[in-house]
């Protein structure tokens, strides 16, 4: 039965939405937004929206003395601050012709690989959370804290270590430190099978991650993808091996790769990298006691330090990919220009915008996190 006077009404289409992911969203390590247009639950358009963490570091660094900038650089990328310290120091060393003592180089590798482990643990936790697996997030964050304990003993700070300075590092290791690193590595090796049970070998996670946010190798190369995200597309490239710095050429490690280019492949690359970092650290623990000598080269008075005129483009492999600083000195007591080229500036913007299209709404967060982009570094 229907009423006689019924007339059909023209409704606006109800299957098109606009949604804001962020600026506070667990899908990303910091404040960041992705504005998406949806048709049903499929993304048709995505626009990255940054700037929530812009602190003007590049500008600030031009106003501060060369040495003072060591306090700024780690803050560019909160979860993986060490590569920032190292790349800045490498740049100033190249400009100033400073010779970094061998022991300092090994200490830097120790510091860098611990930071990579901490960053990957954080990312695993975050990535798990985007698929609803919060237990794993708690594990990742808790285990990362054990690494932060080591940072605290090493540098006096948990998150921002300011441990690397141009010319070397600021402190030698406290007594018994390498044994504690070794204990932590043992612990992580025991933990990894548990992570496998809960997360990496979890059928639910594998099912969710496989095929999500798939990049082809061609796309990855064309869009400027680097780091684990690039290696997950089958290209074996790592700055540590292919454009080596510090003492990485004296260390044995593999460059894990996958070919599928999706969220699962990226996660498995990071998991294997964690194992490689443990392998590197074991070598550092074995070698470091035999490498004596100073931990820093003699430096000029920081208040009267003119770094010679020139430019440098130092480059390191951070946990997130290719990290470079473009440093320009006019021979003065502070930089003329510091340009931060972070891996996340590619991954979080143009790559994410492109990858999100066609993704279902429930996978947007996972796509974001599987790229492991760091908004503070995009914004600088």
């Amino acid at each position, binding site marked *: 039965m229907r009423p006689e006077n019924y007339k059909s009404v023209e409704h606006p289409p109800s299957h098109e939405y606009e949604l804001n992911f962020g600026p506070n969203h667990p899908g990303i390590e910091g404040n960041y937004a992705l504005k998406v247009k949806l048709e049903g639950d499929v993304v048709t358009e995505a626009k990255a929206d940054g700037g929530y963490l812009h602190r003007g570091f590049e500008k600030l660094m031009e106003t501060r003395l060369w040495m003072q900038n060591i306090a700024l650089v780690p803050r560019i990328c909160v979860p993986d601050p060490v590569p920032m310290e190292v790349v800045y120091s490498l740049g100033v060393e190249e400009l100033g012709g400073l010779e970094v003592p061998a022991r300092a180089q090994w200490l830097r590798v120790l510091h860098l690989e611990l930071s990579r482990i901490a960053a990957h643990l954080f990312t695993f936790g975050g990535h798990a959370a985007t698929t609803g697996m919060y237990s794993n997030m708690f594990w990742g964050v808790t285990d990362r804290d054990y690494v932060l304990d080591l940072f605290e*003993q090493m540098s*006096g700070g948990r998150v921002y270590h300011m441990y690397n300075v141009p010319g070397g590092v600021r402190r030698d290791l406290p007594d018994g430190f390498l044994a504690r690193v070794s204990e932590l590595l043992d612990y992580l090796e025991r933990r990894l099978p548990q992570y496998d049970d809960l997360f990496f070998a979890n*059928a639910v996670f594998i099912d969710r991650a496989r095929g999500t946010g798939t990049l082809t190798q061609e796309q990855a190369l064309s869009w400027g993808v680097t780091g684990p995200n690039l290696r997950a597309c089958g290209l074996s490239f790592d700055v540590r091996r292919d454009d080596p710095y510090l003492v990485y050429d004296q260390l044995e490690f593999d460059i894990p790769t996958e070919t599928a280019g999706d969220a699962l492949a990226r996660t498995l690359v990071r998991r294997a990298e964690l194992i490689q970092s443990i392998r590197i650290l074991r070598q550092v623990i074995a070698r470091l006691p035999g490498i004596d000598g100073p931990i820093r080269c*003699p430096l000029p008075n920081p208040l*009267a330090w003119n770094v010679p005129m020139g430019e440098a483009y130092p480059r390191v492999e951070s946990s997130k990919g290719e990290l470079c600083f473009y440093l320009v000195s006019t021979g003065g007591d502070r930089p003329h220009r510091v340009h931060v080229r972070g891996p996340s500036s590619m991954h979080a913007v143009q790559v994410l915008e492109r990858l999100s299209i066609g993704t279902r709404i429930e996978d947007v967060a996972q796509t974001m996190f599987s790229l492991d982009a760091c908004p503070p570094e995009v914004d600088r």
Partner: protein
Amino acid sequence: MTDIKYESKGSLLRPFKALAFLGREPVTEPMGPRPASENYRGFHLNDWEKCIGCGTCKKICDNQAIRMVSIPDLPADPVKGIRAERPAMDYGRCCWCGLCVDLCPTGSLSLSREYVHTCTEEQISSYFILPDPKGMHGQGYEKGWAKTADADLIDLERQPMHQLAPDERTDSFAEVVDGFDPQSALLEASRCIQCGMCHDACPSNMDAPQYIRAIWSDDLEAAIEHIYDTNPLAHVCGRVCTHRCESACSIGIRGKPLSIRWLKRYAMDQVGHDRVRDIVSKRKAPLPDSGKIAIIGAGPAGLTAAYDLALQGFQVTIYEGLPQGGGMTRYGIPEYRLPYNRLDDDIDIITSLGVVIHYDTWVGRDISMTQLEQDNDAVIVANGLHLGRSTRIPGSDHAQVYSAIDLLRKITLGEHFDIPQRAVVIGGGNVAMDIARSLLRLQQRTHGRTDVTVTTLEARDQMMAAADEIEEAEEEGVVIINSRGPRQCTVDKEVLTGLETVHCISVFDAEGRFHPQYDEDDLTLYGADMVVEAIGQAPDNDFLGELLTERLEWVRGRLKIDEEGRTSEPWLWAAGDAVEGPDVIHAIAGGHRVANSIQQHLASLRKASA
């Protein structure tokens, strides 16, 4: 550790293994603050006993979180380089980088292992603290991040200074110290943390931080500008200043102070004399002043006063009894320390400003004080200390017993005297070193061998002479015998044979007064055919004339002056060694002081008459 294959489908059951964790201890942290690591960078601690208030922490602070607070109760001592200031920290800005600790010259600052502070909006001022050794909340947390040798950012070592080897220098009066080359000067200047303790300690308040910074920036002409702001005897002070600045230098607390004196010398040596004269000539006031000033004595005090007054346009005339200017810096200081052509350069800059110097003109003999008073608006006495004091021991009236100051003057003037085969000098100050080293050079030149002994009343660590002077004298072969009191100059058949001394047990009494105690049983004779007394100098004030001497007020043989350098006569000022004791930089400061006082006095007279 096994790999996980991408192709693996995973397991639905394996995640349930994590249920085993339900039976385990959870990861918990106690509510109270967890103890921080031994290196922790927490809130600041500051050892107020060690802190000198130099403000270096403030300069290196990335975030301008540190401000210096002046605290009236605290002791301050510019001579030692201590200010009554302490750093305060704004924890709204601090990022705990610890650079303040690494660059602290004294090591007073450290970071503690304390890291918890919260407050309400009303208590926001608690974010601004004045760190002390007790910690932010007075709970005595231990030190965390503190100064280590590895992390110290202060360069404690001086740039080495090249000087002639002892065997290269004892046969001539060639300058001993080479001076910095540009590279070493730049490196030495770069050590400076710009705290300004040197400026505060310098009697003339020289802007040493500014000229050191200019040298570091390789802008030597700017350095000259800064030097001439406060010191027209730049070559002299670059070589023979007693460098109070270096004693006060903050870097000197844990290391070697900056070579401030040699840096000044470097700037002066590098910039050509003509260029210095151009730079200084631009400072002269555009219009001449009608005021006329007479100065007695062309030593550092008189020349400095003349420079200041000439720059202001006054007509300045200096009356100098000796044939050349410089006073004690020429007739007291040997040429191996101060080449006289450098002194000539300094004087040339001053005369180029219009200052007239009448040499070989003794006031009291060639022109009277009354005349000077009549012809000038003001007169400055800067006659110096040119009479040597005598021990008055038996035999000290022998012709072969000299006063050091007379002998040094003779050497500069080129007057003849018999160079002794063996000389003994009485005294442990810089003048004793000067005459000993000069005689040694003359012996080497004349006899091809040297034999100079210096006997001092004081023990080695009480000697008045500068450490580098003592070291260089001994390198050259001067024998220094400490703790010997002179008893008599022994004479045999009218020929001087030596100096007899007794052991001096102590020089000062419990109250610190000069009251030597001797062990009369411990007698030693030092054979010599010349004995030189270098135990102090006195002014020769006879030129003033009886009438004026009567009218003037005196303090223990010196003209009495007020803090502006005025004597009791309204037209007469006094400055320099004669009123303040021997020291070149004090004399320069005195010169500035009287010049300033005269300008103000004349200006106020004109104001009153207008």
